[in-house]
C-alpha cells in the first residue's frame, strides 16, 4: 500500500466534527439504538449470559490451537475444505484462486468485517473478476442483476462464529435488508478471523442471545444461518473456509490486550461511545472503528505509526463501552495498557518526545514534597500573573489546547497545604 501516512485521530476527528450531516446521522443512529434497546427489556439473566459469554470467548482464545484443529477436522468431515492464511496477502490469493477455480468471472461479496479487512473487493477486481453485493432477498434469482451479471457462481461471506465441535459456520444477518449468506451460489467461500471459533455447539445458546440484543437491540436478529459443510441438494455444492490470522496472533501474545479478541463484533460500544457519536468511524482508520477499534488496530498493526499510536488516546476512559460490552471486554483498561505500550515504544528514541520530557519532569518534581512545594509556589505565582479578572484565557505550549475553548480559573494565592499549615499555627 502506498500514499501519505494516515493522520492521527485528533486531526482526522477535526475534519469529521465539521461534517454536520454525518453528525446528525450519528446522533440519530445512537438514538435509534437506544430506543430499540429500551423497547426490549433486559432479560433477567442478562448478567449471567454476559459472564458465560466472557468465559466462552476466553476458553476459545486460550485453547485456540486445539479448537482450530478440531474445527478443521469437523469441517473437512462434513465435506468442506479448510484453507489457512497467515496474512492478508495470503488470504487474498486463496480467495482469488478459489474464485478462478470455480470458473467465476463474477463474485458476490458481502460487506462483513473480514471482507473489508482483507480488501477482497479490490483484490478480485485486480484479478479481473467482477464483484457485486449480494442480491436483495427474494429478488429474482434467475434474472439479471442490476449490474448486468447473472446469478454468481461464487459467494464470499464473512463468518460470525465457527463451532469447533461440529464444524458449523454461523452467519448472523441483521441488516434492514437481510441477505442469505451464500445461499444461492454454487461455491461458498467463507472467510473468518481465527478468533471467531467457539468450542462447542451449546456455546451458541449464549452467543445467539448476547449478539442480537447488542447488535440491533432486538431479541433475535432477523436471520441466522448455520451451515455445516456441504448439504446435498441444499445450498452451495462447495464450501471453503479460509482461516485468517493477519495480526491476530500478535494480539493474542499480549495477556491484557488479548481481551480485545473476545469481541463478537456487535458494535454496542460504538452506539454508546460519546467520542464515536461525534466523529463517526473514519478517524479510526479503514477497518476496525469505535472503542473496540481503538484497542484492536494498535495491536494488529503495532504502535510504531503515529496514527495507530494515537488511537488508545481517542477516549475519555468513561467506560460506557465496558458497561455495554456483551462479553465484558474492559476496553478502558486495555486502552490504558496500550497507552503504556505507546509510551514504552517511544522511550528509546534518540530525541525524547516533548511530552515524555514533560511527564518525566513532573514525576520527578511530584515525587518529593520539597520539590513539589517549590514548584507549587512558582507555578501559582506564574499562573496568577497570566490571569486577567481571575481567569486564565490563554496558555502556552501543550496547554494551549485547553484554553482554545476553555478558561481556567487563576489559582488562589494560598494553596490548600499553606492554608492548613497556617490554620494549625
Amino acid at each position, binding site marked *: 500500500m502506498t500514499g501519505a501516512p494516515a493522520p492521527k485521530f485528533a486531526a482526522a476527528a477535526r475534519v469529521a466534527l465539521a461534517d454536520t450531516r454525518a453528525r446528525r446521522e450519528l446522533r440519530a443512529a445512537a438514538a435509534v439504538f437506544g430506543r430499540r434497546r429500551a423497547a426490549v427489556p433486559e432479560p433477567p439473566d442478562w448478567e449471567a449470559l454476559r459472564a458465560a459469554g466472557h468465559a466462552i470467548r476466553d476458553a476459545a482464545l486460550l485453547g485456540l490451537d486445539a479448537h482450530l484443529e478440531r474445527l478443521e477436522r469437523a469441517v473437512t468431515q462434513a465435506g468442506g475444505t479448510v484453507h489457512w492464511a497467515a496474512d492478508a496477502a495470503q488470504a487474498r490469493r486463496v480467495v482469488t484462486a478459489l474464485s478462478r477455480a470455480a470458473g467465476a468471472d463474477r463474485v458476490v461479496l458481502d460487506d462483513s468485517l473480514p471482507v473489508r479487512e482483507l480488501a477482497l473487493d479490490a483484490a478480485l477486481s485486480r484479478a479481473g473478476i467482477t464483484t457485486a453485493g449480494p442480491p436483495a*432477498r427474494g429478488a429474482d434469482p434467475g434474472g439479471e442483476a442490476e449490474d448486468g451479471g447473472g446469478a454468481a457462481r461464487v459467494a464470499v461471506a464473512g463468518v460470525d462464529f465457527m463451532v469447533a465441535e461440529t464444524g458449523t459456520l454461523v452467519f448472523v444477518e441483521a441488516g434492514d435488508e437481510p441477505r442469505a449468506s451464500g445461499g444461492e451460489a454454487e461455491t461458498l467461500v467463507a472467510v473468518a478471523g481465527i478468533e471467531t471459533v467457539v468450542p462447542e455447539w451449546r456455546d451458541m445458546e449464549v452467543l445467539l442471545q448476547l449478539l442480537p440484543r447488542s447488535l440491533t437491540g432486538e431479541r433475535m436478529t432477523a436471520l441466522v444461518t448455520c451451515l455445516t459443510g456441504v448439504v446435498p441438494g441444499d445450498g452451495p455444492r462447495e464450501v471453503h473456509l479460509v482461516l485468517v490470522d493477519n495480526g491476530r496472533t500478535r494480539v493474542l501474545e499480549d495477556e491484557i490486550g488479548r481481551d480485545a479478541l473476545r469481541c463478537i463484533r456487535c458494535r454496542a460500544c460504538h452506539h454508546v461511545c460519546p467520542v464515536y457519536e461525534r466523529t463517526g468511524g473514519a478517524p479510526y482508520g479503514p477497518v476496525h472503528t469505535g472503542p473496540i477499534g481503538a484497542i484492536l488496530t494498535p495491536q494488529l498493526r503495532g504502535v510504531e505509526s503515529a496514527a495507530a499510536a494515537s488511537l488508545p488516546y481517542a477516549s475519555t476512559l468513561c467506560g460506557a463501552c465496558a458497561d455495554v460490552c456483551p462479553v465484558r471486554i474492559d476496553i478502558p483498561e486495555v486502552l490504558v495498557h496500550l497507552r503504556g505500550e505507546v509510551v514504552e515504544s517511544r522511550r528509546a528514541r534518540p530525541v525524547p518526545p516533548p511530552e515524555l520530557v514533560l511527564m518525566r519532569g513532573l514525576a520527578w518534581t511530584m515525587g518529593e514534597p520539597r520539590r513539589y512545594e517549590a514548584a507549587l509556589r512558582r507555578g501559582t505565582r506564574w499562573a496568577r500573573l497570566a490571569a486577567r479578572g481571575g481567569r486564565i484565557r490563554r496558555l502556552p505550549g501543550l496547554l494551549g489546547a485547553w484554553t482554545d475553548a476553555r478558561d481556567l480559573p487563576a489559582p488562589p494565592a494560598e494553596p490548600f497545604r499553606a492554608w492548613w499549615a497556617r490554620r494549625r499555627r
Partner: protein
Amino acid sequence: MSARDEVLRRVRSALGDERKPPPPVPRGYARRSAEPRADVVALFTERVAEGGAAVRHVGADELATAVAAALWGREVKRIAVPADVPYGWLAELDGVRALADSPPLDAAALAAVDGVVTGCAAAIAPTGTVVLDGGRAQGRRALVLAAARHLCVVHADQITATVPEAVARLDPVRPLTWITGPRGARGLEVLVVED
C-alpha cells in the same frame, strides 16, 4: 512451512508453554423453563405478533382450512412447497396452484411463485423465532428464502421456552435457518397448531 503450520505455530507461541486451563464456563443463565406449556405458547404468539408477523392458532383438524384462508387472504395464487409437505395441509386449497419442489424447481420457477408453505424444526417463544433445518416439510434454503410470502406451520410442542432449549433440540449438522420477524422472512405468517 505451510500457512497452516505457520498460523498454528504463532498461536502456540502467543499462548506460551505454561498455559493455564481456562476457567469453566458459568452457565447460570436460564437454560430450561418450568413455565406451563400454555404460557410458553402464548408468549411465542405474542412475540411473533410483536415482530410484525401475523399469527393464528388453529386446531389440527382446522389446519387445511387455515392454510387456504391465509393464502387466500394474501391473494397468493402460486405457491411452492417442499416435496414432503403433508398432503393434508393443502387439502382445502382452492384457486391456488401448489408446485412441489421435486425435482428441484429451477430459479425461474421459484421466481414465479408468490408464496411458500413450510413446517419448522423448532420455534423459540421469547424471541418469536422459527427455525428450519431442511427436514420434513421444510425444504431447502433457496426455496424458503425466495418467495415474497412464507406461511410457516408450527406445532405447539415444537415451541421452546428458552433459546438454550432450542439449541439443544436442533442438530447443527443440518442446515439451520433462524427466522425472526418480517425482516427475517418477507411476509412471514405463522399458524400455531394446537395438538
